[in-house]
């Protein structure tokens, strides 16, 4: 099956600071993201996965290397081109509280995402769509629309963020640890919502996570990052059943299982 490449990442490197304080956060990373696939970038804290995500979202300029969408380098995008890119590539962040401007209601946050659209829908149309996407994430418009973020729970806030993604319908969603600050009970429902994005919009999703178990559960392909380098990539099954890199082997060993006794 020949799939189309959506995002092409080549030799991506990011350096912070200079001289003594020089830190290479991401080293020479290359990978492709195909249409309608789910991949996970797995790594521990400081492995450079969030920096990679920020570069993919065009929030941070790479020191070296390129990210290409449809043959165009995203670092040259300005103004309208940038908006077009964000129409195609969107993100969800780790901390559902910090993602909100605390002075705006849910309704306003969702309204703002229409800014990315070239043609502004009418007020009724916007209203209709917002109601629809809130329904997707199992929330009632009347209950949440006029609420401020601090009046909502973490899970509710993250669901609003997902509703926002449904509104924009991007081709690629980059979710940076979307469930790590949410109660374990709510995690699976948030994950299912994210996965439904692939079914509904035929989008691709990149999960950034430290949890290999989760990555295996949701993704087609897994990329393992360690100390800023991409140490291994392959299909989820290959990575789990036949890991090549010692770091990957160690990661797999560290996944706790319910049926075995933990060696602590």
């Amino acid at each position, binding site marked *: 099956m020949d799939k189309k490449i959506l995002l092409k990442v080549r030799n991506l490197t990011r350096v912070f600071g200079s001289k003594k304080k020089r830190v290479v956060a991401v080293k020479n990373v290359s990978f492709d993201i195909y249409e309608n696939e789910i991949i996970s970038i797995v790594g521990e804290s400081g492995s450079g996965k969030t920096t990679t995500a920020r570069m993919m979202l065009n929030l941070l300029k790479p020191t070296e290397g390129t990210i290409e969408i449809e043959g165009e380098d995203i670092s040259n995008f300005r103004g309208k081109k940038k908006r077009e890119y964000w129409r195609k590539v969107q993100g969800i962040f780790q901390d559902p509280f910090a*993602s909100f401007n605390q002075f705006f209601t849910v309704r306003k946050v969702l309204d703002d995402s229409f800014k990315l659209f070239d043609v502004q829908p009418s007020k009724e149309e916007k209203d209709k769509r917002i109601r629809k996407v809130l329904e997707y994430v199992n929330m009632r418009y009347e209950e949440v629309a006029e609420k401020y973020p601090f009046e909502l729970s973490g899970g509710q806030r993250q669901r609003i963020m997902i509703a926002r993604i449904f509104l924009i319908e991007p081709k690629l969603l980059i979710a940076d640890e979307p469930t790590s600050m949410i109660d374990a009970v709510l995690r699976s429902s948030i994950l299912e919502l994210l996965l439904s994005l692939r079914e509904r919009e035929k989008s691709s999703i990149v999960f950034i996570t430290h949890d290999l178990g989760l990555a295996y559960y949701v993704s087609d392909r897994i990329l393992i990052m360690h100390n800023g380098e991409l140490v291994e990539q392959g299909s989820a099954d290959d990575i789990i059943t036949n890991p090549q890199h010692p770091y990957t082997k160690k990661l797999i060993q560290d996944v706790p299982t319910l049926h075995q006794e933990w060696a602590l």
Partner: protein
Amino acid sequence: MKTLKLLFTSKKFVFGLCLFLTLLFLGLLFPVFNHKDPLDLAGFMYQPPSKEFWLGTDNFGRDVLVELIHGLKTSMFIGLLAGTVATLIGVGIGLTAGYIGGWVDNLLNTITNIFLVVPPFVILILISVSLQNRSLGIMGLIIGITSWPWTARAVRAQATSLRVREHIDLAKISGMGTFEIMLREVLPYIMSYIFMAFVLQVASGILNEAGISMLGLGPSNIVSLGTMLSWALLFEAVRTGAWWAFIPPALTIAFITFSLLFMSTGMDEIFNPRLRS
């Protein structure tokens, strides 16, 4: 609009606002009904409060009450103008430097530091001396232009820390422009800060005017709370026991500052939604 309505649920804010407006209207309306000239030599030197002169007379035998209300008007005007000018410049420079960062930050920070190390009072004196005609507006402008760096500093520090928050990232990937993000995503978070800085700027504007008036460089031929205090000082009102010459203007300055501070505390509770209960 909603936030404005909410403001009026804060008792502190309403109290501060009422006090401030009372003082403001007193200064604005009194001269409409009472046509007495504040510079008129109505009585003798340092007459204590009486039925004729409710707050006594000053060293020139002028009615302190009439002077006080005209002075209140003048000082409020200068303070508000200076505070507004200083806040506008300070917020503009601080927000740009803090949010945009990089060389813009370096450049603006250098300018701010230069203004910060030169004592504003010296600049104030130099400009005042070089001006022939010192009207109220010019005085307010000069004080404002020399006192913005502290506001710029405070705003810059806040904007720098807000810049890296996730909601700013979200605003960016929602396609908002730099200016829009500064106004909508950064400014509301530091609004109460800015108002507090404004309050202090207004208060220090009033005091600066008083200080410069004492040197005889104040606005020409106009009574202000500052000039009243300086006359009281020059003509030894304290030693002569003429408390009515300096306590009323000093109290008035205190009341203005007090009312503004109350408003700022009330606003902090409202602007920071987490403090709303």
